[in-house]
């Protein structure tokens, strides 16, 4: 493969907001992009620290999100609280394996993939590793892309609660777990957005 120069070594810089390439020497003291006036940073400041902080917050929130019920249903068949995993199991037992799988992917597999993938990216960047740089960049893009699909369960619970308003015949209400779960989605998205993938390619001594 042809070795490609890093903009860092050529004295160039790319604006993260508008994509303009700038010679660093021409930037004024304020380091503002000449086109969009955003602050230009060679690398996102404190990227790994901020990413790690959001990642830990996401993992902490993930615990109550799974332990607490997300929805309370009542009706002619009695009352019950359901958690995310409980809901998936219910679908599975009822034979709706496709819906069970979809919710499993969105609510369990995606957050877990994000925790592991971001953890791996942070670990290898800290180690200054040169292992599979291209694959790790692809992994970052996958994390960036799948992030918001976890919002699925929040939407399903909200729609179900909005629709099931038949008092004794059947009613559904949201429970605390769903707020924690919404928090997990937001916080892990912030974690992924704080990570600067260019760190994967930097060689620091």
């Amino acid at each position, binding site marked *: 493969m042809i070795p490609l120069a890093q903009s860092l070594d050529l004295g160039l810089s790319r604006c993260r907001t508008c994509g303009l390439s700038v010679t660093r020497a021409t930037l004024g003291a304020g380091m503002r992009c000449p086109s969009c006036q955003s602050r230009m940073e060679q690398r996102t400041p404190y990227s790994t620290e901020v990413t790690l902080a959001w990642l830990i917050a996401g993992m902490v929130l993930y615990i109550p999100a799974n332990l607490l019920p997300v929805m309370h249903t009542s009706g002619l068949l009695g009352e019950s609280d359901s958690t995310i995993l409980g809901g998936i199991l219910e679908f599975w037992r009822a034979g709706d394996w496709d819906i069970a799988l979809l919710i499993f992917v969105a609510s369990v597999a995606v957050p877990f993939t994000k925790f592991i993938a971001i953890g791996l990216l942070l670990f290898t960047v800290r180690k200054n590793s040169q292992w599979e740089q291209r694959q790790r960049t692809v992994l970052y893009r996958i994390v960036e892309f799948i992030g918001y699909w976890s919002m699925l369960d929040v939407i399903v619970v909200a729609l179900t609660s909005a629709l099931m308003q038949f008092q004794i015949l059947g009613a559904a209400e949201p429970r605390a777990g769903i*707020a924690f779960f919404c928090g997990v989605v937001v916080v892990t998205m912030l974690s992924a957005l704080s990570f600067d993938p260019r760190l994967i390619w930097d060689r620091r001594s």
Partner: protein
Amino acid sequence: MNAIVICRDCDAVYRAVPLHRGDVALCRRCGAVLARHLSVNVDSGLALVCAAAIFFTIANLTPILSIEIAGMQTRANVWFAVRSLQEGWISLAAFGLAFTTFLIPALQIALLFWVLLFARTGRRAPSFGPIMKLLHQMRPWSMSEVFLLGALVAIVKLAKWVPISAGPGIWAIAALTAVLALLGRCDPASWWSIGSEAGT
């Protein structure tokens, strides 16, 4: 046009080459998209934004789902879903939902309309810079496609118990998703050259 292109994901430096219709320039090292030939120009962009505004309005005025039991009817769309989460501090989730499925798509459509309206005459809209920055930052948080999938899951989930039917809103939100995806293909980064000293 920038003579030098730098990869957003791996910082590799390239000399820009002219792209033809349908071309996508990928980073040789990490595979990121470096640049795209603009398949959506200002006029078609503006048309798409108008379509998005119409679909967004329909999706929010008509029911997406409805259930009828013994003469009682309940309906749901984005706003009903948000309101159903307003219970004590669970309202935090209502905020999250309102932002990602209502406020941000609405702002995206309004701001894109504003920018493109001026771009038609080759001018930069007032407060172009801050608007473009905001559009850039809002992009990951726009979730109407997730809402569509959520509505479909809710239908399958509830269909076993109650007679649930999809309203016109579900078609509107499906169309909105498609139009927003098409709009996402036109690269806002290239609009920075609109009306700048260098020309287009």
